[in-house]
């Protein structure tokens, strides 16, 4: 049973990995800093650990999908992220892919294609 639980957790993580990218890109049409983004995602029902989100933001920035800026006008510096034009194009394509996948998966899971 322990193996089953571990496998389920592993599969759940794999399933969420792509979804998190889509969610982050979707929310970053307005500039947001890391912790604020975690809160916004949690408020929408998607809980992401700090150890996953912060490295992801950095990775997306390196891939050119996000752009960032340090705000030094406040009491301490804070890094704000926003989707880049490349990220916007990727998001549009990902969103279409997601909607198509959801429709297909709904059909599969609800048994429309079962014989």
């Amino acid at each position, binding site marked *: 049973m322990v193996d089953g639980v571990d496998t389920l957790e592993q599969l759940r993580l794999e399933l969420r990995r792509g979804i998190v990218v889509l969610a982050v890109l979707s929310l970053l049409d307005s500039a947001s800093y890391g*912790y604020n983004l975690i809160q916004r995602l949690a408020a929408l029902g998607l809980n992401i650990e700090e150890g996953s989100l912060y490295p992801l933001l950095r990775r997306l920035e390196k891939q050119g999908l996000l752009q960032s800026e340090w705000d030094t006008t406040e009491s301490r510096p804070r890094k704000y992220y926003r989707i880049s034009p490349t990220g916007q194009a990727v998001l549009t394509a990902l969103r279409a892919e997601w909607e198509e996948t959801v429709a297909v998966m709904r059909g599969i899971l609800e048994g429309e294609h079962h014989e």
Partner: protein
Amino acid sequence: MSELIDRYIHQVGLYVRPRERTEIEAELRSQIQDQLEDRYGSSPTQTEIAAVLKQFGDPRSMAASYSGEQYLVGPTLYPFLMTVLRIGLPLVPAVIVLATLVGAVLSPVGSNWAALLLGSIVTAVQGTLLFLAIVVLIFAILERSGEPFGEGTKAAFNPLELPAVDDPAAVDRLESGIGLAIGTLIGVAILYFLQVGGLTLRFNLADPGDVLPVPTEWLVVLLLTTLGSIFVNLWALIHRRWTLETWLLETVLNVVGAVGFYFVLLRPVLERLTQTVPALSERLPLDQLPSLITLVMVVLITLGSGSRLIRLWQHRQGANA
């Protein structure tokens, strides 16, 4: 307040790439402070800071997430590495023990068999570890050199261009694996022989024991042909095919290697044998034996490789027609 945060960030910084360290540390500090302020205000206690840091997770895990997936040898080269190791790891100690025993028979000095057995086991362990290290090092260098392996292969793959079942350009992974394993072992041994100035079966730089002098220039030739053959085989394994040029080069390297084998091993060992056991040379015509063995080797290599060379040439002619 921030001392615990400093310790956490320092630990993360130890495990991330040096060129990204400053930036990641600054990001982390800002993110930790955002969370602390939101949850506990401007003056959190040590316990509250610890609670937030616990949520960020183990520093090494956090650093690993920043580094992404990293390989010493990636998934494309891994099967080839395992092929070479699967063949080499049992082969290397067996060859070393056998060579040590043969060496003891040829040695002009009497042998203590118990010490010899113990010495051969120690040498076999050393040789196996060295072989393992060198093979992994070669693959790690390959992993980091040139174009990333495996990238773009999906786009370039054309099922209509799949090789025929009896394709002469096909690479036999087992054959190349054995070639790489033996080549690596021979290369290491030659480097050692160059260092001690001749052949010996005691792999100990400080005390190489009884050294049989051999021509250094031929040791160098043998080393170059061995290294050349290793890289040609690796090239074929990675590109999954032999070309007319690479197989011709492999053939030439093998022929030159066989000649080198004569000067570096066959002739010196036979001379030693006739000195150690003079009666043997009186009863058998040993003088011609090294030349004969070398000739047979060259003929076998030429015939074996030649047939494939002809098929590769015909294959190319057919493709060009």
